[in-house]
């Protein structure tokens, strides 16, 4: 993991170099081992390095190509770089064993086509000194982040929005659509960013920046891959074998490291599979890490310990009081420099903190749920989808009936029945703040589109006749995974200068998963059907077939207990609230209802609180936080 930063100025003045260095310094935790800058006419490049491969100074960045035409800043890892080297011929031979050098030589040889050949997690920028163009790319799945800004004769980019914002002069102009979408689903899907003049480069895309402007191009896309019906007739054992081999290959590729490496191990299927593959790949006693909680409802410690025992790994665990996670709140607020409302960031940060005491790289199982059908709402989607085809009158009557019942779940079902199609149903199930519109200023509601339109737009490339669950999985894989879960992994691990690698996001595995018919993902309500079959090769059934727990924290209780006072202070801070287009009275009412136990509103409240913290942080650093609204036709 590293941090990159750059600014290309075509007209106008560049900021002082000190500002550039200060912005680069904001990425220090991403790369504490080394830093470097590159200055030439109109261009500034900066790099913070976390040394993982080739620890010597020859891996220093920014790095020039062998012919000195190109200069690169690169964040990430190219797992197949050793395989690519024999196909490349740098002038005067290789200077290092670094994957950065391989990448820049690959670009020198193949241009944009290098993206088709590399397998890795990355965000990088390459400056062509001859053509005076900047090539900026992000990996296929979106493991590594990249933000950019274009306007006023300047193109800037950075690994994090905070650094880029500082480089561009600070100030906070909130994108109203991002605000709306954030309150609705708890994260901000690319290309939206919370800053109005900033964009997040979507996964699988590159940018070409030249005097003619900025062009954004998609170079890889899983959306249109059709499920392959011929796989239905293949023996299940053959598919298990094939999947096992793919996971093995993805994990083995990610063992490339010159520093100690381990893995996160929860009690779940995905991380256990990763660890099992590490063993198969020859890591005799991989170090694995788990956070256990004293409170039973949140504790996956015993399950992880059992898996570790069966797999024969060097297991490290730390038992915490769940409330002690609150010690991480300042880190959470500091490091998420874009509002982020997934409270599972707490345990992720805790396990990262633990792992970092022992290793510099950790493998994680992230991505398996989205590609192999892990979430509880996938089977639910398929069960609810037939109801959407009911006639309007029947649906209306059913909704009225369900709404009149006293249970929360029936009210939710009534809401779900309002959906017109499977994308809308997914949107309903996935949204965290179902009553968010009551909080937002009416102008914003009228002038912006909601998050469902982003889902709709993404789904236009899906194959015809996908099941509802398959539709949901692809939406999660393309939007929720990169912009929520992988963002959480990136920021949480970055906060402790640990590099996380996610083998389940290997593009070969993803393409295979897209072809895999649904019956091998969710069958009779059983999620991750085929993945569990693979894991059964390594672990006994009671370790494999156990309820999914996830990284939950008792947020609802926290907001009534230890965080109540903090939440009240934030929400009753008139100055702070006035910086956001929220209905103050309504927000306070939601907090009161939650505090008094009248209703459970913790997901929405947490979103609002993270938003307030974000604005507060910016307000403290910047003189004039301003609200502005973008016109949306």
């Amino acid at each position: 993991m590293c941090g990159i930063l750059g600014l290309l100025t075509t007209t106008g003045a560049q900021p002082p170099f000190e500002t550039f260095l200060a912005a680069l310094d904001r990425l220090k935790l991403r790369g504490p081992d080394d830093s470097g800058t590159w200055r030439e006419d109109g261009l500034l490049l900066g790099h913070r390095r976390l040394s993982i491969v080739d620890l010597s100074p020859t891996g220093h960045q920014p790095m020039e190509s062998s012919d000195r035409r190109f200069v690169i800043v690169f964040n990430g890892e190219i797992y197949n770089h050793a395989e690519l080297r024999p196909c490349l011929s740098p002038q005067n031979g290789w200077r290092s064993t670094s994957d950065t050098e391989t990448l820049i030589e690959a670009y020198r040889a193949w241009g944009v086509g290098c993206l088709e050949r590399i397998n890795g997690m990355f965000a990088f920028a390459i400056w062509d000194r001859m053509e005076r163009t900047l090539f900026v790319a992000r990996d296929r799945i979106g493991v590594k982040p990249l933000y950019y800004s274009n306007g006023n004769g300047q193109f800037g980019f950075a690994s994090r929005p905070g650094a880029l914002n500082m480089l561009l002069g600070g100030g906070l102009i909130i994108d109203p659509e991002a605000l709306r979408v954030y309150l609705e689903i708890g994260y901000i899907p690319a290309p939206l960013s919370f800053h109005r003049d900033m964009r997040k480069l979507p996964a699988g895309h590159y940018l070409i920046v030249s005097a003619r402007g900025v062009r954004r191009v998609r170079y890889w896309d899983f959306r249109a891959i059709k499920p392959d019906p011929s796989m239905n007739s293949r023996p299940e054992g053959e598919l298990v074998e094939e999947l096992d081999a793919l996971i093995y290959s993805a994990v083995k590729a990610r063992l490339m490291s010159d520093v100690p490496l381990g893995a996160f191990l929860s009690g779940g299927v995905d991380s256990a599979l990763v660890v099992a593959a590490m063993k198969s790949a020859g890591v005799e006693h991989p170090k694995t890490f788990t956070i256990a909680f004293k409170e039973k409802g949140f504790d996956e410690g015993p399950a992880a310990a059992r898996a570790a025992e069966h797999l024969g790994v060097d297991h490290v665990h730390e038992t915490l009081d769940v409330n002690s996670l609150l010690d991480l709140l300042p880190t959470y607020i500091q490091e998420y420099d874009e509002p982020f409302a997934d409270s599972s960031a707490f345990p992720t940060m805790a396990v990262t903190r633990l792992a970092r005491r022992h290793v510099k790289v950790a493998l994680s199982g992230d991505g398996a749920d989205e590609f192999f059908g892990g979430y509880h709402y996938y089977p639910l989607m398929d069960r609810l989808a037939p109801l959407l085809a009911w006639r309007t009158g029947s649906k209306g009557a059913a909704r009225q009936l369900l709404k009149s019942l006293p249970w929360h779940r029936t009210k939710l079902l009534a809401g779900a029945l309002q959906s017109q199609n499977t994308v809308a149903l997914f949107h309903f199930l996935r949204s965290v703040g179902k009553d968010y519109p009551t909080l937002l200023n009416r102008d914003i509601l009228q002038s912006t589109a909601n998050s469902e339109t982003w889902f709709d737009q993404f789904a236009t490339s899906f194959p015809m006749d996908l099941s509802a669950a398959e539709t949901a999985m692809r939406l999660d894989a393309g939007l929720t995974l990169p912009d929520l879960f992988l963002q959480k992994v990136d920021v949480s691990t970055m906060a402790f200068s640990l590099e996380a690698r996610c083998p389940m996001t290997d593009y070969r595995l993803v393409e295979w998963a897209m072809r895999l018919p649904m019956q091998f993902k969710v069958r009779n309500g059983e999620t991750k059907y085929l993945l569990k079959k693979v894991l059964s090769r390594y672990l006994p059934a009671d370790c494999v077939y156990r309820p999914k727990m996830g990284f939950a924290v008792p947020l609802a209780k926290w907001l009534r207990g230890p965080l109540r006072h903090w939440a009240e202070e934030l929400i009753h801070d008139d100055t702070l609230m006035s910086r956001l287009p929220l209905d103050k009275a309504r927000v306070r009412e939601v907090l009161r209802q939650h505090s008094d136990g009248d209703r459970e509103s913790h997901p929405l409240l947490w979103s609002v609180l993270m938003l307030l913290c974000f604005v507060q942080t910016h307000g403290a650093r910047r003189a004039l936080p301003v609200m502005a609204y973008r016109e949306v036709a």
Partner: protein
Amino acid sequence: MAAPRVAPRLLFLFTEVCANGGIQRFNQTILDSCGRLGIQCQVLSLNDSPASIAKTLTPDNSSIVGFSGDRRRFAIAVAGALLRGRYDRVFIGHINFLLLTIGILALQPFNRAPTMLVAHGIEVWSGIGRARSYALSRVTGILCVSNYTRRRILEQAPALIADRLIRFPNALADTWGHVVAAPSTPSLAAHFILSVTRLDRGDRYKGIATVIEAFSMLADDSMHYLVVGHGNDLSFLQLVAERYGVKDRVHFMSGVSDSELIALYQQCQAFVLPSGKEGFGIVFLEAMFFGAPVIAAREKGAVDVVRDGDTGLSVRFGDTIAIKEAIERIVSDTRLREHVCANGRALVTEGGPFTFAGFTRRCAQTFEVGETIVA
């Protein structure tokens, strides 16, 4: 000496005739063909209104009665017509009328006219069910507009006799040969790609949003994208164009006349409609006839018309990268462009499989009218 031929009388049950759309165009073409063959056509059309019928030029030997969407009146009229039994053939223009027709005909055990069904696209690709399968077994012939449609029906109703499913592709309407292109296209940029389609929420399978994304990735920023059509999804597509930063170069046009449309076909760099569910894709034939290179999706009925690298370029549905590359290829490779345009046009000009004359010959064979009648 042969006895003088008596022109047959056919009853057509159509959803609609006097509008634009694939099924409507097919219905118009079959009536035009029947006109050439001297067949007397009585048409009962569910969705046409007397006003729309009055505005439409129909052959002299066709009589159309429209029911403005009134299903009850339509059903009564169909029952009356079938029970009177004065027709040599009954032609069911949509599978939704199949059960009604077969049910009514069951009430008339004698002098029952042979019945034919035309199977277009989406509506027969799934959900045929038992009742319809039975009804399908009662019709004399099923005219399938594409190989895909024929295959899907047989997959769902394997008991059907395969020979009764006749491949009966659509054809370019005769009228197109007589329309003159507008002298100048309506306020156009010089350089553009074109789509012509409905823009309803339910028609997202047409792939217009995917073309917008592909278009936004093109290096040539002088290129424009024209979408001819209207529907309730327009605001969504405009939002998509805005999000991809190309709203100034994506133009939605409706109310385009036939002569303007011809000019658009003739001047576009490519006709792009990567639709995922095209029953046949008559619009591809129109584009080909007027010399536009066609880019389609390798899906369903479109594959009968657009063969990759031969009569056009075909891409995987939803694959925006492939659409972008196909546009770039067709624009930059003059030889490829000329090749696919020539082969595409050959499909719809004399001797090609999708000409009006060929369609009329198929009608003559199907309705057992001597070919000598064909004009």
